């Protein structure tokens, strides 16, 4: 959560707004609450939910964006998950895929483990890290107008983008996505026209 913020946003409302009316968007969600948020917005064949491998969400999205250059790819994760894979921002910033957006739902705490403070609460600004790593657009969003503007850009693939969105540190009821990684992999690939081996 940003310093001086007065009204951090509701995470479910943010994710629902980002995914509303999605068209060609492919989505990768980081483990924990972001996966529940994406599921709560509606299960979709174009979603890949991570349940483990903390720190990996951005790189899964990057690999997908490199293989599907004509499709916009959105990674939705949390500040703790992003912090565990901070080097990924450097790796992605070096290649600058134009069809990748990384959204960090930033509440400054580890929601899954008891709301312990993350580095965001001690002043780290993830969007500044992303900017330093070469992201063409790196911003912090603290209102729904900003979320709506980001939603408008998501499908257009206008360049590598990063957004940290200030959300409230709360834990809405869990909405669990499928946990069978092979099932969601095959479902995702089938939606892109690929068969199982």
């Amino acid at each position, binding site marked *: 959560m940003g310093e001086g913020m007065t009204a951090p946003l509701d995470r479910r409302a943010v994710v629902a707004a980002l995914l509303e009316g999605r068209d060609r968007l*492919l989505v*990768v969600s980081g483990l924990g609450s972001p996966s529940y948020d994406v599921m709560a917005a509606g299960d979709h064949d174009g979603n*890949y939910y*991570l*349940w*483990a*491998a*903390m*720190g*990996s*969400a951005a*790189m*899964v*999205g*990057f*690999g*997908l*964006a*490199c*293989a*599907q250059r004509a499709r916009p790819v959105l990674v939705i994760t949390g500040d703790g998950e992003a912090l565990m*894979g901070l*080097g*990924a921002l*450097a*790796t992605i910033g*070096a*290649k600058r895929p134009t069809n990748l957006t990384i959204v960090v739902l930033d509440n400054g705490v580890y929601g899954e483990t008891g709301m312990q403070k993350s580095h965001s609460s001690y002043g780290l600004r993830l969007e500044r890290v992303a900017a330093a790593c070469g992201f063409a657009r790196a911003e912090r969003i603290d209102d729904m107008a900003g979320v709506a503007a980001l939603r408008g850009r998501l499908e257009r693939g206008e360049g590598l983008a990063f957004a940290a969105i200030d959300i409230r540190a709360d834990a809405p009821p869990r909405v669990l996505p499928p946990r069978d*990684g*092979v099932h*969601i*992999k095959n479902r*995702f*690939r089938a939606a*892109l*026209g*690929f068969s199982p*081996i």
Partner: protein
Amino acid sequence: MNAVDVGPGNAPAWQEQVYAVLKRHAVRHIVYVPDAGHAAAIRLAEADPQMNAVALTTEEEGISFLAGAWLGGERGALLMQSSGVGNCINTLALQSCARFPLLMVVTMRGDWAEFNPWQNPMGRATRPALELMGVMTWRADAPQDVEPLLHGAASMAFNGDGASALLLGQRLIGEKQWVKE
């Protein structure tokens, strides 16, 4: 890093064979943390307009990258040094749970004739660590074994949605000269 001159024309043949085998298996993404033993493959990948070569900050990034690339329908391979295997352990759960093709080519340190003892603990643990996490492993110590073993590892990764690693022994790579004589 092993300091070996592997500029164009100077790389041992097996190093270029690594790249040729990856190409034959329709690999489109080569993701790597550099090592001298991979210098030829990295140089060839970076020069190949059909190949997406991605330098990583740490090896586990490569596992998640290749998971994403396979979701998007394309094959890749991860090149790294044995010390990086230790960095990969938790992320290997992604391969176990999602079962995507994961092909790793690992140059050994802490192996034969290692000068730096700080390399030895991870070098000794490399193969058991991979096997603990369910990765199939093979090891090449002679140049003529690299091509067939890599072909086999790639076949089992790509035909079986499996995790395969080929370890390239330090005797194959060559003894690192630390002090000029």
